[in-house]
């Protein structure tokens, strides 16, 4: 079981409150991603759950029992760090076996578990090496191996992929997702990369300045963001926000349209906004246009596949009326 409940948890460093009172429920077996811009308190929140930081006030419950004052070593959680934090003086085998040794598990059983974990993670050939002799991806696997052998209540990941190159990151993302399918253990994953959040999470927690902006499944956040911050943070490229006269027509302070929710045409349309292509980014599968649409501002528009528009070309864009998000002056989403 791995339910984690945060009740009115706060954290201050000196006089600075980085996490105002916060409630959160994480269910057993869920893959929860904390996402937000750097400095939003997501890592601090993870460290509070881990017990590496003490809460200033409030309670943390693990499996229904108060864990607020239990030291990290006794919480039954495993953590994978951004820097991997492997023990440089131990072989891969000893690194993975370390939590078992600490738990006082018999060497024979520990050996079997380490070898099983190494098998799953493709590390069998590297068991006698030191971390310094491994590549970034292999080190990451060792860190994961060390986390899984002790069969924790929940896994905590602190930006585990940010030190890897782009191709490896996509691979590891998949491996972690597969691991979650296999183990069905609660996972809490911190990242600033909304793509990681969208692709891996069952539940995303969007944070800003220590405050939870919205909690929901990836698609909930995508299709019904609670406010302008979430709308802008989730989705890539970012949602376009249009204020002023155009927004007023929709009875809102601002409207938001995702790049994929425009109808683009190189011929004049009756109710389209006229614009001029400033930059076009050709990705093969998609083309992104940055279009200067006069009083609407510069809009990012996505077209599927190749689209024959170049710098300086005139074009007409029209938002998909059903997919327009409306926001009030405070940035909150207006009901339709």
């Amino acid at each position: 079981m791995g339910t984690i409940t945060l009740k009115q948890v706060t954290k201050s460093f000196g006089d600075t409150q980085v996490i105002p009172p916060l409630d959160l429920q994480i269910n057993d077996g869920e893959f929860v991603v904390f996402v937000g811009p750097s400095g939003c308190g997501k890592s601090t929140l993870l460290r509070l759950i881990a017990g590496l930081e003490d809460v200033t006030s409030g309670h943390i419950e693990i499996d229904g029992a108060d864990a607020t004052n239990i030291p990290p070593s006794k919480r039954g959680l495993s953590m994978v760090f951004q820097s991997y934090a492997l023990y440089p003086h131990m072989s891969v085998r000893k690194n993975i076996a370390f939590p078992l040794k600490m738990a006082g598990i018999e060497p024979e059983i520990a050996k079997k578990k380490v070898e099983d974990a190494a098998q799953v993670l493709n590390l069998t050939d590297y068991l006698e090496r030191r971390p310094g002799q491994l590549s970034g991806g292999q080190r990451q696997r060792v860190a994961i191996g060390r986390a899984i052998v002790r069969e924790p209540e929940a896994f905590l990941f602190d930006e585990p992929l940010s030190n890897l190159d782009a191709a490896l990151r996509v691979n590891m993302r998949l491996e972690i997702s597969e691991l979650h399918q296999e183990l069905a253990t609660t996972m809490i994953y911190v990242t600033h990369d909304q793509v990681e959040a969208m692709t891996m999470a069952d539940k995303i927690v969007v944070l800003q300045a220590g405050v939870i902006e919205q909690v929901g499944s990836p698609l909930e956040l995508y299709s019904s963001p609670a406010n302008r911050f979430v709308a802008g943070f989730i989705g890539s490229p970012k949602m376009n926000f249009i204020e002023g006269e155009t927004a007023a027509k929709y009875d809102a302070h601002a409207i938001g349209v995702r790049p994929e929710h425009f109808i683009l045409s190189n011929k004049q349309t009756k109710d389209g906004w006229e614009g001029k292509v400033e930059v076009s980014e050709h990705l093969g599968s998609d083309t992104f246009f940055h279009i200067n649409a006069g009083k609407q501002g510069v809009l990012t528009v996505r077209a599927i596949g190749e689209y024959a528009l170049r710098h300086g070309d005139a074009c007409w864009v029209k938002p998909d009326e059903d997919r327009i998000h409306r926001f009030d002056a405070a940035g909150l989403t207006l009901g339709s």
Partner: protein
Amino acid sequence: MARKITNNRKIINTAAAWGIGLLIFFPILWTILTSFKTEATAIADPPVFLFFDWTMENYSVVQERSNYGRFLWNSIFIAGGSTILGIIVAIPAAWSMAFVPSKRTKDILLWMLSTKMLPAVGVLYPIYLLFIKFGLLDSVLGLTIVLMLINLPIIVWMLYTYFREIPGEILEASRMDGASLKSEILYVLTPMAVPGIASTLLLNFILAWNEAFWTLNLTAAKAAPLTAFIASYSSPEGLFYAKLSAASTMAIAPILVLGWFSQKQLVRGLTFGAVK
């Protein structure tokens, strides 16, 4: 742009370094040379440098007159014991200062160092009285404790700088892996800090070996280490230069050899943490 070092400059620098090195080493060299002279040659005027009748006589006299082995054993016990004791006390202290610093950590470190600025003689009287009270006068145990306390600030400082270089995340990882504080220090921190601990051990062994103020003032016959052995050959009349030199050479030889073989560790130990 890298600074260009001309050949001339290199030669001057090398010559200067050698000059300074020889200047520092000269008294030791002179002591060693004198130990092979007769008492008459030793005080000859003008002094004789290399060309004299080399003799081992002083060594045999010194060996006959006093029991070198006992002094040597006392030195090893006191220097070794105080260093090991110091390390055991200093590792947890340095751990807490390096990894869970408080607002006052810097002040405490400075305060600890400031005790080294106090002239030792300033606390001789109270410590002497304490030694009488606890029956520690002329005991190796008493000296071991005093030398441990004297060198503790340096040990803590050195370990603190080493520990600061160890990423805190690795210790946090061990905590997440279920390690208790004891296991964390024993299985993770200490092995990672082995080079640092080794050079700290070495330096403090040397410092304790050479310490003369407390060893001379708190010992008589039983617990006297090699420093007292040397002192016993210095007479106010100064007529036994050669024997004094032989005793000195015998006293510094072990530490000189140790220092020679651990040069690398020592240099690393003294410059570690200075360059990021």
